[in-house]
C-alpha cells in the first residue's frame, strides 16, 4: 500500500537518511527499529509531510504522491503520532483532537459535535474518563498520549504512524494500545510502529524493518520468528549480553534520604520510606498511581505535606533548595520539563551545575566544555557535538543529555523518572551500567520506570505503589514480574 523508495534527507552536518526503502502492506503492523539517531523519526516526519526529502519517491495505493505539508499527508490518509507530543496545552481535549479540522458550519465551530465525537474516540480508546472539556496542559503524560491517539483516529486515516507511543505508557496502557492497534489492523488500517522495547515488536508486529545510520539494513523480516539476537545485532552491529548489572553484594551506607508521611491531597497518601547511600530503590506502579508525583514532591517541585530530609537536613525552598542539598531530578517529560530546545547540547548538560564551572558568576568556558565533553562521551550522545542545538538531536540522544545534566557533579540523591525513555537497547545497557556505577560511588538512587523488568533488574529494593500508597515493599530479588504486575493492578499484596 505504501511504497517508499530511496529516500535521502540531509540536515546541516548530518545525513539522516541515506537511501531508505520501506514497504507497508494494507492492514499490517509494520515495526520500524533502529538505534537512537538511526533516522526513524526523520523518516516518519517525511511520511507525515513535516519534512521534505532531498530525493526519493513515495507512492500510496500504487500512485506516486507528494506530501508537501502535514495537511496534505492527512488528506492522503496518513495520520501521525509524533515522538514528542505536539498538543496545545492551553486548549481543551476536544479542541486538540479536532485542531485543524474542526466541525464547523459557516466558520463557527460546532463545539457540541466535537465534544461528542471526542468522547466517542476516547471511549473507543478505553479512556472514557478523560473529559473532552479538560485543558490538556493539566493531563498526565499518559493521558496526553491517549489524546494524540484520539487525534490520529479522528482523521479516519488508512495509515497511522506511531513514533514510540508506548514510551510514556505503563504496562496496562500498553495492553490497551495493542488492543486498539489490533482493532485498527482488523479494519484494514496499516500501522507503522516504532519502539525500543523489542518484546513489544514480537507481540504486536507483523513485519520489521531495521534502520541503521540512515539505511534500511533489513526490511520485511517476520516479526514473530526473527530471533531477538539477530534483530539486536542488525540494529547495533554487535550483540548485547547481560542487560542488567549484577547488584548482589552491593553495600549500603546510612540512610541518606528519609521521607516521612509525604502527602499530596488526592494523589499521594502518607508515603514514608528511606533510601540508603549506594542503594537503588525502585518505585513500581501504574501511570497515575502517584509515582512521579512522589519524586517531584521529594524534590520540592510540588507542594506536599510531610517531611523530606537528606542526611538529616530538611529539604526546603523548592527545587532550588533541593539542589543545594545535593538532590537531582531527571524528570519524566524531557521536552516540557528538562530541555532548552534552542540551546546547545553543552548548555543543556551544564545548566544545573553551572555554578561549578564559574567563579563569581563568570563562566570558565573551557572547564564547562571539558565537563560536557566528558559526559557526552560517557553517555555516548550522538552526534558528539557540543555546539549543536539540542533540538536537532534524536529523541533518545536528547534523553541521554537530560541524564547527563545530573551526572555532571557528585549528587547525594538522584531521582530518576523514566531514565531510559526512548533510549535504544544498546545505550540502555550502558545506562544501566552507569546507574550501577553511580550507586557504587555511594549515591542514593530513587528510580521510577513503567517497565517492571527494569525496576526489578536495576533496583535493590522495590516499593509497589497503588493509588498513591505504598502497598508492598520487598528486595527486588524476592519479587518477579507477574507478582508485581498483579499488585500494581489489583492491589493483592502477597
Amino acid at each position, binding site marked *: 500500500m505504501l511504497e517508499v523508495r530511496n529516500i535521502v534527507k540531509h540536515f546541516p552536518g548530518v545525513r539522516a537518511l541515506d537511501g531508505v526503502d520501506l514497504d507497508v502492506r494494507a492492514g499490517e503492523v509494520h515495526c520500524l527499529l533502529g538505534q537512537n539517531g538511526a533516522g526513524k523519526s526523520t523518516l516518519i516526519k517525511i511520511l507525515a509531510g513535516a519534512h521534505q526529502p532531498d530525493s526519493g519517491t513515495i507512492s500510496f495505493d500504487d500512485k506516486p504522491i507528494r506530501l508537501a505539508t502535514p495537511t496534505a499527508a492527512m488528506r492522503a490518509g496518513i495520520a501521525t503520532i509524533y515522538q514528542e507530543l505536539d498538543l496545545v496545552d492551553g486548549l481543551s481535549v476536544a479542541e486538540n483532537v479536532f485542531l485543524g479540522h474542526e466541525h464547523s458550519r459557516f466558520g463557527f465551530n460546532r463545539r457540541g459535535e466535537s465534544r461528542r465525537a471526542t468522547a466517542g474516540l476516547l471511549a473507543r480508546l478505553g479512556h472514557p474518563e478523560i473529559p473532552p472539556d479538560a485543558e490538556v496542559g493539566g493531563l498526565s503524560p499518559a493521558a496526553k498520549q491517549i489524546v494524540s491517539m484520539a487525534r490520529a483516529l479522528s482523521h479516519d486515516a488508512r495509515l497511522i504512524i506511531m513514533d514510540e507511543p508506548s514510551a510514556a505508557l505503563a504496562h496496562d496502557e500498553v495492553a490497551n494500545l495493542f488492543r486498539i492497534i489490533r482493532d485498527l489492523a482488523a479494519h484494514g488500517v496499516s500501522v507503522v510502529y516504532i519502539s525500543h522495547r523489542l518484546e513489544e515488536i514480537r507481540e504486536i508486529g507483523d513485519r520489521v524493518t531495521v534502520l541503521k545510520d540512515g539505511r534500511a539494513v533489513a526490511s520485511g523480516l517476520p516479526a514473530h520468528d526473527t530471533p531477538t539476537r539477530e534483530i539486536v545485532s542488525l540494529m547495533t552491529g554487535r550483540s548485547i549480553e547481560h542487560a542488567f548489572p549484577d547488584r548482589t553484594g552491593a553495600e549500603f551506607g546510612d540512610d541518606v534520604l528519609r521521607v516521612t508521611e509525604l502527602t499530596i491531597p488526592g494523589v499521594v497518601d502518607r508515603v514514608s520510606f528511606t533510601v540508603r547511600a549506594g542503594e537503588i530503590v525502585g518505585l513500581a506502579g501504574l501511570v497515575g498511581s502517584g509515582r512521579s508525583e512522589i519524586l517531584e514532591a521529594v524534590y520540592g517541585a510540588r507542594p506536599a505535606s510531610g517531611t523530606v530530609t537528606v542526611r538529616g537536613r530538611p529539604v526546603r525552598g523548592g527545587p532550588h533548595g533541593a539542589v543545594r542539598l545535593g538532590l537531582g531530578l531527571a524528570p519524566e517529560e524531557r521536552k*516540557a520539563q528538562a530541555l532548552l530546545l534552542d540551546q546547545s547540547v553543552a548548555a543543556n548538560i551544564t*545548566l544545573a551545575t553551572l555554578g561549578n564551572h*564559574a567563579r563569581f*558568576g*563568570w563562566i570558565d568556558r573551557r572547564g564547562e566544555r571539558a565537563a560536557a565533553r566528558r559526559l557526552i562521551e560517557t553517555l555516548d550522545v550522538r552526534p558528539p557535538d557540543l555546539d549543536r542545538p539540542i533540538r536537532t538531536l534524536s529523541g533518545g540522544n536528547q534523553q541521554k543529555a537530560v541524564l547527563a545534566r545530573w551526572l555532571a557533579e557528585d549528587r547525594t540523591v538522584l531521582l530518576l523518572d523514566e531514565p531510559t525513555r526512548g533510549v535504544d537497547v544498546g545505550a540502555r545497557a550502558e545506562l544501566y551500567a552507569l546507574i550501577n556505577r553511580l550507586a557504587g560511588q555511594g549515591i542514593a538512587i530513587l528510580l521510577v520506570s513503567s517497565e517492571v523488568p527494569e525496576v526489578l533488574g536495576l533496583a535493590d529494593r522495590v516499593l509497589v505503589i497503588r493509588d498513591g500508597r505504598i502497598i508492598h515493599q520487598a528486595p527486588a530479588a524476592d519479587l518477579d514480574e507477574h507478582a508485581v504486575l498483579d499488585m500494581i493492578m489489583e492491589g493483592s499484596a502477597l
Partner: protein
Amino acid sequence: MIDTRQRGNVAGREAVWRRITGTRHAGLVVALALLAVIGLVTVPDTFATSSNLVSILALASTIGVITVGMTFVIIGGGIDLSVGAVMALASVWGTTLATQSYGPAVMVLCAVLVGAGAGLVNGVLVAYGRLVPFIATLAMLVAARGLAQRISEKKTQLVQSANDVIVSLSTTRWLGLPLLVFLFALVVVVGWLVLNRTTFGRRTYAVGGNPEAARLAGINIRRHTMYLYALSGLCCGIAAVIIMARTTTGSSTHGDLYELDAIAAVIIGGTLLSGGRGTITGSILGLLIFTVITNLFILNGLDTSDQLIAKGLIIVIAVLLQRRNALGGTS
C-alpha cells in the same frame, strides 16, 4: 595527530554553526549598509558628515542603553513597558533642586538608583506578585510618569551651571566622539559579557526558554526574574543620566514612547518575544537601523508621520524575514 585532526573537525563544525547563526546579523548589517547608501544618494552632503554621524550615535545612546536592559528582560520571557517613563522619573529626580545641591555625583547616583528601584518594584510585582509583565510594567509606566510630573510640577528642570560636569558628558569629546557614546559602548560591552559569559546570562536564556526546566534544574526563577527587571530599571537610570547630559534638563516628558523603539529594536534584532533566544548584538543593530531611518527622514525634510509608517513596515518585514529563516532551518 589523530587528536588534532578530530579537534579541527569539531572546530570546523563550530564555524559552520557560527556562520549559520551569524547570517541573522548579516541581514541586519546589509540593511544598515543599504540605509547608508540611501543616505549617501539622497542627502550626499549632510549624511556622511562627522557631525551627523556623531548625532546619530548620540541619539542612539539613550535608547541604546535602555535596549540592552530590554534585551535581557525579553530573553528572560518578559517585557518592560515602563522604560521611557522610568527614565523620565529618574531624570526628574536627579535634577530636583534638592538633589542638585549635593553636586553631580549624587545626581548621577540618584538617577541610577531611582531607575533601579523602579525596576525592582516591577520585578517584585512580576516575580512575587505574579502579575503579568505587560500589566505590571504598564502600571509602572503610568505611575512613574505621574510621579515625575508631581515632583517636577510639570516643569522642565535645568541642570544648574554648578553641575555642568554632567553636561560635559555630551560636550567633551574624545577621539572625536562625545563621552556619552563611550558610556553607551561600555554598557553594551558589559551587557554582552554578562549575557554571554556569566551564569546570570545563561540562566536568563533558561528562564525565558523553558521556565519549568529552569526551575527543575534548581534555578531560583522568581529571584532571577526580579533581577532582570531591576537590571532594566538600572539601564533606564543610566539612560536618564545621558539624557540629562544631552538636553541639560530633567523632565517628565522625556522618553515618550521609548518603550516602543526599544522593543522594536530588540525584535528586529532577532530576539524572540516569547523568550529564550536573542542577542545584544542584534538588538543594537536593530536600534541603529531605527536611528538611521529617523535621521534620514529628518535630513530629507520628510514628515514624521511617514517616518512612523516606515518604521512600522520595517518591523513587519524584519519579523517576516526572520520567520522565513527559522522555518528554513527546520524543514
